């Protein structure tokens, strides 16, 4: 297991290098640069800016400078937030985004697993229909529509919550709920079908036949065995949630990393593009690794060596 983990972690290096190279090439090849504006700067002012941020050097040299700095833990600076270190931007953005993402993930997982399981055990009953209805709604409405609806109802009409910022419960409920809606419904659908499939397995019938109490059959044999396909999707969902939601962060004015990720691209803010992309790649790889490890925990047949 340790050897497996070491090998997987070692693979991080080439993966990140590959991502860095591709991103660097792509971002320097889209039209426009960080200083492009309608009415351009006087050429000299732009020249001073390029000089200050090494943008006057040949691309290959800029790439080498970037990688060298990166190896030394220096992610460079932002242009759009003039001179602010990218590491500081990621750190402060990540704090907000991670809080939001983890809360949303927990909410989505709890709600999704519960609804999915309840629906499966009550297949074709009213509870099942109710759960499927929820899942369909959640899956068909994008998060910002849900967010707008929640804001109209709970902020503008009822004045229960705040719309701006994130931190206190009063301004955290809506962004967490809006963000959790889609993954919750997705998880509930996967859970329902997975549980339904396991319920029909021979070993479940065997467990019942040998006289096990129903709760034990349900929990130990049905739910546990239905977790594998669910775990597969939980990894990417977790990675997606903690790496930020541009839309939810934008709507609720939350200074998270999801906004940096998108806005940096539009601003041609090279340092932030590189930083957030590498960060996202790292999260994805690690989340997948955790999922693979979790497989082994829930399914004793899976062993890594």
């Amino acid at each position, binding site marked *: 297991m340790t050897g497996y983990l070491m090998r997987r972690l070692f693979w991080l290096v080439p993966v990140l290098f590959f991502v860095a190279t591709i991103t660097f090439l792509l971002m320097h090849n889209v039209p426009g640069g960080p200083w492009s504006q309608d009415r351009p700067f006087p050429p*000299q002012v732009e020249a001073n800016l390029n000089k200050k941020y090494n943008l006057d050097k040949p691309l290959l040299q800029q790439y080498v400078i970037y990688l060298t700095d990166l190896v030394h833990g220096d992610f460079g600076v932002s242009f759009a937030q003039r001179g602010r270190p990218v590491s500081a931007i990621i750190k402060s953005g990540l704090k907000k985004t991670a809080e939001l993402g983890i809360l949303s993930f927990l909410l989505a997982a709890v709600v999704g697993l519960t609804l999915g399981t309840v629906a499966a055990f009550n297949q074709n009953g009213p509870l099942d229909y109710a759960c499927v209805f929820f899942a369909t709604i959640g899956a068909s409405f994008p998060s910002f529509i849900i967010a707008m609806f929640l804001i109209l109802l709970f902020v503008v009409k009822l004045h229960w919550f705040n719309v701006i910022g994130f931190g206190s419960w009063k301004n955290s409920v809506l962004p967490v709920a809006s963000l959790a809606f889609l993954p919750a419904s997705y998880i509930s659908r996967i859970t329902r079908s997975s549980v339904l499939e396991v319920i029909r397995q021979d070993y479940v019938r065997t467990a019942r036949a040998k006289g096990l109490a129903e709760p034990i059959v349900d929990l130990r044999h049905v739910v546990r065995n239905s977790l594998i396909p669910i775990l597969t999707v939980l990894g990417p969902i977790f990675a997606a949630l903690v790496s930020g*939601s*541009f839309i939810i962060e934008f709507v609720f004015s939350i200074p998270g990393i999801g906004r940096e990720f998108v806005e940096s691209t539009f601003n041609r803010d090279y340092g932030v593009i590189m930083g957030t992309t590498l960060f996202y790649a790292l999260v994805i790889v690690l989340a997948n690794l955790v999922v693979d490890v979790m497989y082994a925990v829930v399914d004793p047949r899976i062993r890594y060596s």
Partner: protein
Amino acid sequence: MLREKRSPVLLTGVMVAVAALGLACGSSNNNKGNAANTAKPSASSAAAPSAAAPSGGTATAGAASATKAGTAAANASAPAGGAATGAKPADAAPDDQQKLTIQLPAEPETLDWQVSEFEQDISVEHLLARGLFYFDKDANVVPALAAQMPTKENGGLSADGLTYTIKLKSGQKFSDGNPLTAKDMVYTVQRAMDPKLAGNYAGFFYDIVGAKDYNTALGTKDSPKTPSDADLAKMKAAIGVKAVDDSTIQLTLTKPSGSFLTRLGLWAMYPVEQSVIEKFGDKWTDPANIVGNGPYVLKEHVEKDHLTLAANPNYTLDPKPLIKTLTLRVIEDNVQALNAYKNGEIDGVNVPQQQAQQIFADPSLKDQLHRQPRQETRGWEFNDAQKPFDDAKVRMAFAKAVNRDDYIKAVYGGIGTPATTWLPPGLPGYAQANESIQAFDAAAAKKLLSDAGFPNGQGFPSVSLLLTDTPLNHTIFDFLQKQIKDNLNISIGSEFVDAKTRSSRYSNKQFTLFYGGWVGDYPNADDWLPDLWTTGGSTNKPGYTNPQFDAAVKAALAETDPQKQAPLWSAAEKIMLTDAAGGWLYHGEMVMLFKPKVKGLTGVSIDSGWFGSELFETTYISK
């Protein structure tokens, strides 16, 4: 061009992105590129607030239009009696209630005022520091740190118009209590021109002796220069600025200028304290380090979240600020900002175009509405070097084919005013007589097109309008397309791209038809006509050229008396309007809501950031 940094988030773009991405991975985001948001430069396509500068006569024009639009005129009028002198108005709430929270529509790029170019930055910096001059409610230049306006009569300006000798008011201090002297002003000018600092507005002061040499000392990518530190120091010392004594600064220009004192009032010339800069380097703008001489000090700055400012106890100018604590909440989405306003989370908010009509019609909001025309013009720009727009008749046909009144209503929700001139009302040089040149006239437009060889639009080559992909710009395109179809029988296409792509294509002249414009930096037409439209001007991307116009601009620049200069600008503008160098459609306006308890707001055409930001000290919370 003063730039507005905002996130014109394309919810339409986002919708597509979400739909495409959504279900598969269970996440609603992380789209690497398709969600459109924004870029910092106010792509001149977005309706960008900035500065308008009514001076004298135009302030009235502004007020008149505000009244017409049903605004509480009282809001825009002069502050309550005592406020002007810094005394507390009778109806002001106690000091511990003098707290205000308002929307800032974007995170400042930097708070280093020698570097900034964005409105958000400037509105904050204007509270943290003050220069030699600033602007009154009619956007006239008046002394701030300077004891008086330097003139030839009082010896402040030499007979040849080249040397300004400016006395400082006595007893000036920085917010840390240290004295502010002429030496600090010299350091400030030198720092603003430092090529290694790379300030965005350095180019505005190239007419100071030696300033350009120093600022361009590092050369460009194609012709790099490598001056030694000693060379740089020599060039810095050669800049035409010196401290005659502790309270007198002298500046020497290469040629006389009618706008120099106005430009000295800009943020790039706000003083900085040398010891602070040298001690903290790039981190000098952190709340713990930053030192200015403005009415406020920076207490807290959480990036992309909020800035908290507190009244500066060491503020040496008048009036003193009445609001004791000002919180600026960074909210890029105007629609949500309005929801936050309705929910009582913030006290001041920009009115989003989508909801403007509804708000204008709501009687309960009437006394909360504040409107101020801005120095902003938008409209058609053409590639004058390419067919079919190399023909002035075709350009004029496009200019005359758009019904501006409908345009402002349908596209901007009634925010802004119809434009047929390049210079906005209120700017010295704006002339009402020039309004008729490009006025809407469908029949005349049709005839011009026919005269140009395209009767009823027949044979007109296919052209497309280049725009940034924002919801507002889609509305703009839909409207303009229909007007051109109805009035000229031409179908124009569209090209929606992201802001940087659009800018880059504009810079490289890769466009036929463009929606562009200008936001004024300061109230003088020398910010609007030279360079942007003169032959070979570095920012004249449409490629307009007319020797008569060039000569008219030259004549206006040579005149330094503002009274005599204004008609010369009007005459120059008339030429470029007659040639339809561009076709102008829209003048900007700042429209905000403030809670009824917020009083003493004074709108100025050069407000940036929020209504009343330029003369913010008179704002207060009433009982």
